[in-house]
């Protein structure tokens, strides 16, 4: 069903030298759905998101985002999604409004529409009153809300959220999920997210994929995963699937590079 899929991934692989971060994964995210992508630290979640969002080139395999090939039709793909990164990507020296404006201009949103939409979105995430404050004065929750508003400015069909509620208090997490859920219901935006909070996946995601050591080890609804592992909660099912051993975050190519530089830098 190629037309009803928001994201189609076939045999996607990414290697860093000899290390295989993502090992030939395939999955499908239906249009208009909330999809959870789970896995322990270093399982390949962020690497996968980076490939889905054109930041990294796949070593092999194919990705279709809204029907566009992520390597050959980069711009079409880029226009069609919004993203909230795991770590913040705002300019702290600029105000909330300027961050939004920057994004709108970069995505070619026409002036009138841009101004209307910025106001609308900042009101939704309750930051309109703070629009002229520099982002460096914002709390973690406010920054996250601003990033969500910014990611939606250009009317994306898919919204990627890489651990959107990491480090936020339950109130803020709840508020953020209310926005995301509403958005999915009212605008039919496909939501693809990663999280370590299993209850978020259980409550909001229709389908879940679990990735570990670069392979997808289980896919399905929360119910089917629980049934498969005979677990009472998704958390237990997750532990059953991925084991109890604590993971060290695998260094990415960039980290390897950094380490290399440190080694040589130390000899100055």
């Amino acid at each position, binding site marked *: 069903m190629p037309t009803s899929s928001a994201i189609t991934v076939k045999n996607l692989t990414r290697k860093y030298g000899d290390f295989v971060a993502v090992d030939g994964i395939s999955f499908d995210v239906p249009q208009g759905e909330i999809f959870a992508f789970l896995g322990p630290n270093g399982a390949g979640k962020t690497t996968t998101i980076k490939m889905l969002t054109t930041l990294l080139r796949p070593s092999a395999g194919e990705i279709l985002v809204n029907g566009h090939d992520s390597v050959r039709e980069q711009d079409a793909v880029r226009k069609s999604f919004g993203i909230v990164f795991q770590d913040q990507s705002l300019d702290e020296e600029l105000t909330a409004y300027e961050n939004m404006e920057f994004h709108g201009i970069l995505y070619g949103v026409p002036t009138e529409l841009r101004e209307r939409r910025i106001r609308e979105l900042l009101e939704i995430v309750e930051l309109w009153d703070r629009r002229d404050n520099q982002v460096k004065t914002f709390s973690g929750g406010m920054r996250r809300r601003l990033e969500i508003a910014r990611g939606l400015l250009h009317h994306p069909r898919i919204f990627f959220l890489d651990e959107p509620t990491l480090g936020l208090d339950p109130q803020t997490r709840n508020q953020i999920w209310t926005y995301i859920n509403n958005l999915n219901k009212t605008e039919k935006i496909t939501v693809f997210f990663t999280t370590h909070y299993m209850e978020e996946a259980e409550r909001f995601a229709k389908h879940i994929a679990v990735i570990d050591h670069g392979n997808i080890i289980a896919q399905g609804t929360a119910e089917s995963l629980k049934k498969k592992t005979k677990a009472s909660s998704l958390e237990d099912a997750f532990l059953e699937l991925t084991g109890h051993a604590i993971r060290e975050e695998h260094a990415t190519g960039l980290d390897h590079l950094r380490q290399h*530089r440190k080694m040589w830098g130390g000899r100055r």
Partner: protein
Amino acid sequence: MRTIYILWLRQLKRYTRSRSRIIGSLGQPLLFLFAFGFGFSPIYQRAGGGNYIAFLAPGIIAQGILFTAIFAGIELIWDRQFGFLKETLVAPVSRLEIMIGRTLGGATIATLQGVIIFFLTLLAGFRPANWWLLLPAVAFMFLIATLFTALGTAIASTMSDFQGFQLIMNFLIMPLFFLSGALFPLDGIPPVLAAIASFNPLSYGVDGLRGVLLNATHFGMGRDIAVLSALTVLVLLIGNYLFSKIEI
């Protein structure tokens, strides 16, 4: 075009908002101007060199531009570490536009810094041959600024953190400045030093600025402009290649 504009505007906003940075980066050129300028003035005069402040001022302006431009380029590392680079890299715009916007933004800031230093040199007693020369001087400053912002960006494209910063400071920026003829005339210096200076792009910047403001050059105005323009194009091409290779 809109991409280039908004990236340019962002650099400018960031610059005008950090007053401490503007003032901080004026400290060094001022120190050089007053210490070298007044310190060496009497002996320079006695040696028959004439007015040392007049000779030194364009060199100090070029130094201010060099530092500001390279730092503006290297700011890319900052954007990378603080995540903002990702926001621009997932946008549906070409990397070339991003790089041009950043470079023009940095070059504009460095030029502004050069103009501020020009006015400060007036306080030390510097006078250009003719006030109208300020206009071509600004254009020339922009050329120097573009070259070194592009150089900073190219270098920053290959670095993921500030570990190598001291290296760049001590083995690139400082030698560029001290071996450029900003502080001493290039006529009659030992051949090794002369050879080094002739391979130093800033020499042509300093010389050209002197050519514009004082009508006195060592290499000749045509050669200064040709060398700087050719190098700017070359560095932009290399920078564009390195920038397009960035993966986060």
